[in-house]
């Protein structure tokens, strides 16, 4: 199930061009990884999996705050949410 969720997040990341959906797909993949940690922790009855999930949670929170600030900046600058509009880097 974690693999299925991770694959869905990856598909969403590759297919969509809207930056909101890309961030959402990253969230799906992080959640799937956390689910894998929880399942492993429950399998061996250790709390390490839950500790790792909390670290993933903190990382997701930081990533989402920075990512959404970047989304706002992108929208102010280009008036769109299409990520292809921001590919102006030459080289």
């Amino acid at each position, binding site marked *: 199930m974690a693999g299925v969720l991770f694959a869905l997040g990856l598909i969403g990341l590759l297919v969509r061009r809207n930056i909101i959906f890309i961030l959402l797909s990253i969230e799906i993949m992080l959640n799937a990884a956390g689910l894998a940690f929880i399942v492993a922790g429950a399998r061996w009855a250790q*709390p390490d999996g839950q500790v790792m*999930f909390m670290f993933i949670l903190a990382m997701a929170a*930081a990533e989402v705050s920075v990512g959404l600030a970047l989304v706002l900046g992108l929208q102010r600058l280009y008036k769109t949410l299409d990520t292809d509009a921001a590919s102006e880097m030459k080289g």
Partner: protein
Amino acid sequence: MPWMFYLAGAVAVAATIMTITRLNAIHALLYFVVSLLAAAVVFYTLGAPFIAALEVIIYAGAIMVLFIFVVMMLNVGERAVAMERSWLPGGIWVGPAVLAAVLFAQVVYLVMRGPGPEYPRTVVGPKQVGLALYGPYLMGVELASMLLLAGLVAAYHLGWRRQPEQESKETHFDERRTAVGRSAVRAGTDRPAGAP
């Protein structure tokens, strides 16, 4: 209760599929919230009630509210109005409502059944998690706190820096767009009348 695990897992996968196939961001967020709630039920059936509570509070609560806030901020002018009009006929909320009703039925079943021989596996409670978190993983906690601080500062910086120079930058963009002949009218109508 393996059937609860599999039911919640099916709900999570279905909601995630609906998430990445929606065209509207708000609909996708609705389905993703349902997916997170289903994942919380999965965690509970796996014997991690503390993480289930954290999933609901932080993921479905805080992070999704952040997403919805940004999506609401990004909607501009008449496009949002047209979108709102397209929402009004209803029927869109049926999908998330059905999936959430399945989860709600599961929670009601758990509450009504009361304590009993519940878990197929051993429960790892919050006490053990806390002991492990502040025992061998103390350095990780400090690193996570520093990461959160860095994220806070970065988000503040990215959100704040464009405020003083926003006016000049927007006018530059408007002049450029006027040459292109696109969206200058809309940008003009967004301003209040007395604004420079």
